[in-house]
């Protein structure tokens, strides 16, 4: 398990990024009437949101954390999956409830 402060920070940042992406999509919907679910399937929409979350998560830190943790022997791919899990679960739950 990676050093706890790093893990917690990365998970919190993933959650924050997901909320930001979600709010942005809702704003787009409110302002321009764009409904992502009309343009994309639920699964694709989920994929877009999770991918955007991961990109924001790691690009904001310019990949430094991936390199740093990789150098400590941490499987960063697993960490990315872990970070994607909460937004993916929430998106899946929301999609299921909406349908």
């Amino acid at each position, binding site marked *: 398990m990676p050093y706890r402060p790093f893990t917690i920070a990365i998970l919190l*940042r993933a959650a924050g990024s997901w909320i930001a992406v979600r709010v942005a999509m809702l704003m787009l919907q409110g302002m321009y009437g764009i409904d992502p679910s009309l343009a994309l399937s639920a699964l694709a929409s989920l994929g877009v949101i999770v991918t955007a979350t991961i990109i924001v998560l790691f690009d904001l830190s*310019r990949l*430094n*954390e991936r390199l740093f943790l*990789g150098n400590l022997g941490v499987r960063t791919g697993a960490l990315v999956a872990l970070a994607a899990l909460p937004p993916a679960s929430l998106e899946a739950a929301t999609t299921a409830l909406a349908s």
Partner: protein
Amino acid sequence: MNDTILQADSIGKRFGRRTVLSASTLWARAGQVVALLGRNGSGKTTLLKIAAGWMAPDWGIVIFRGERAPRPRLWRQARRGLFYLPDRGLLSPAFTLRRHFEAVAHHSPRAHVHEAIELCALGELLDRRPRTFSGGERRRAAVAVAFARRPDCLLADEPFHGIMPLDAEVLTDAFRALARTGCAVVVTGHETPTLLDLADDVLWQTAGTTHPLGPAHVALANDAFRRDYLATDQAPRAPGPE
């Protein structure tokens, strides 16, 4: 040779239609510092990334401590004693330097944190975040983190780039100290006097392949190296055998 810790053999890499590496070879031997030199765009960084497991080669193989890996992974090699110091930032802007050292100590039972802090003169920077550091401080901090981890093989990409001589001296001391512990060190860059002074062996990366030139004084006697890389017909002053 038995003391070869890392060997990246016949490595090839293409980016689109451009072949950056066609048959490049890199090796790192215990207790030695190797300087990997070459023009901008010659593929030094790509070769280092591939050897570290940060980028996949299109062909070739990486052998690290006897284990052959067609597609090496950084995390796996790091667990076996490799450390890759990139040319850009290594440290997270979100955490203080102290947190970084704590993370190193958490993952490395044999970490030498205090020695690293002292060697790289980082005592006053411990509670600051790397984004507030100067370029030289950032470099010293990154090398200190690598030193603290006490790797068996360190691949450092352009560590001397854009730093003042005093910081360069600190880094040189750190690399030499690591080599004395038996670590195999590979360093790239264009700061020729510093690198040739530091290196036990010189590799020249050019035209997609690598040429082993031997010790610095032998490298400097190589006509093609002088002409095509150093751009001089005269051998510069460099350390030779006493």
